[in-house]
């Protein structure tokens, strides 16, 4: 299944400065594996040392949070969009 992964601004530096990356995957886990296979530097930003998705990074399939679907086993359909949405804090002075 060809799906699009949208890379958020703070992580683009680790993904060849691309806004989105197309990968072939049947599940969210496969999509993220394919993504970090292409861009190794992304791995530590998405996963903790024990291989779990970091708690300040949320992953959406289309507009739904995978925590409320089947987590990383969420099945993908052709043309789905995966969004990686990390927390950002900027606002006032810096």
């Amino acid at each position, binding site marked *: 299944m060809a799906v699009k992964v949208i890379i958020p601004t703070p992580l683009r530096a680790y993904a060849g400065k691309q806004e989105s990356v197309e990968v072939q995957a049947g599940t969210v886990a496969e999509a993220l594996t394919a993504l970090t296979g292409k861009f190794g530097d992304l791995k530590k930003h998405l996963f903790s040392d024990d291989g779990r998705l970091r*708690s300040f990074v949320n992953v959406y399939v289309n507009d739904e949070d995978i925590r409320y679907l089947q987590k990383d086993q969420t099945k993908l359909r052709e043309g789905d969009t995966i969004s990686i949405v990390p927390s950002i804090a900027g606002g006032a002075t810096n």
Partner: protein
Amino acid sequence: MATKIGAPMTPAQDKSGGLSKEEVLRYSRHLIMPEVGMEGQLKLKKAKVLCIGTGGLGAPLGLYLAAAGVGRIGLVDFDVVDFTNLQRQVLFGTSDVGRPKITAAADRLRNLNPEIQIDTFETHLSSENALDILKDYDIVVDGTDNFPTRYLVNDACVLLGKPNVYGSIFRFEGQITVFGYPGGPCYRCLYPEPPPPGLVPSCAEGGVLGVLPGIVGTIQAAETLKLIIGKGEPLVGRLLLFDALGMKFRELKLRKNPDCPVCGEHRILTKLIDYAEFCGVRGEEAPTTVTNIPEITPRELKSRLDRGDDLFILDVREPHEYQICNLQGHLIPLGELSRRVHELDSSREIVAHCRSGKRSAEAVQFLRNAGFKKIWNLKGGILAWSDEVDSSVPKY
């Protein structure tokens, strides 16, 4: 002392919660639209909104809330206006540089609308004072710039049952939503934990397009006004993502997490905690996360260079920073150091520097671990060089 027949009795009406003649004129474009009208305008007049931060987000927010006639606006900030703020913090002018933000902001808002009350809190919002400051307001708007304060504002709003109009920005991307609305999710539902300090984008990768906080802060203002007048669909349970480069808005579903530690069914947080500890930082301006790094001061470096010592200057900033100013060093951005380490000669004495000394401390530690013995970190970076050695070097 005769009162004209039919003319509004301004002071009496004002006391009864009505609008004065001046206010009717000022707010006429609200009054003639049915979604606001007199009823909505009076709600605005009675409303009390607390703005945390008067920076990039707080500036448009404060301006629009004051202009719209929100009757009482609280401002919390501890900072002083500096030149780098003016690129986006449109509350302030050049003549405000050096003034406390809170004073400059209050002056500007009072000038914009003398009919409203401005409360100022020149302080760091903390676990000790947050509940006391927040309790008098109906709505809290989060325009801060760091994770500890964001979790503090969230938890305080949940504990007090107040909506939290949230906006955050990075470079050219923004996130906006309303947390803490009855039955709706909170910030911890979205992000249970903050990123560890080492993984947040460094100052090199930071920066913000000046207009971005203007757009995001204005959306926060719109949501605040809607909550007050009770019209429209509030941005509850929806995370709005804005990308100024692509000029795209996207919306994601935001659910209340039943296991949320602060607003879930089995909540474990029932009072405010130590947020610096929770976020793994002891204040935002911790000079360096790396310890026991050999350092050289700008003055020492200058005198050694003047003596003609053979020193190799390694600049670990980004190329666009090098264009702003440089010490004619060899440029290897910190993120590329591991694969470009062969460009360095470990037999030479090396002085690494960045903007403030933080990234170069990491570089020095990395290189020491890689076997480099004769390496120093320039204390305070190119900023300190500008302060102590050569003031013609611009600071950024």
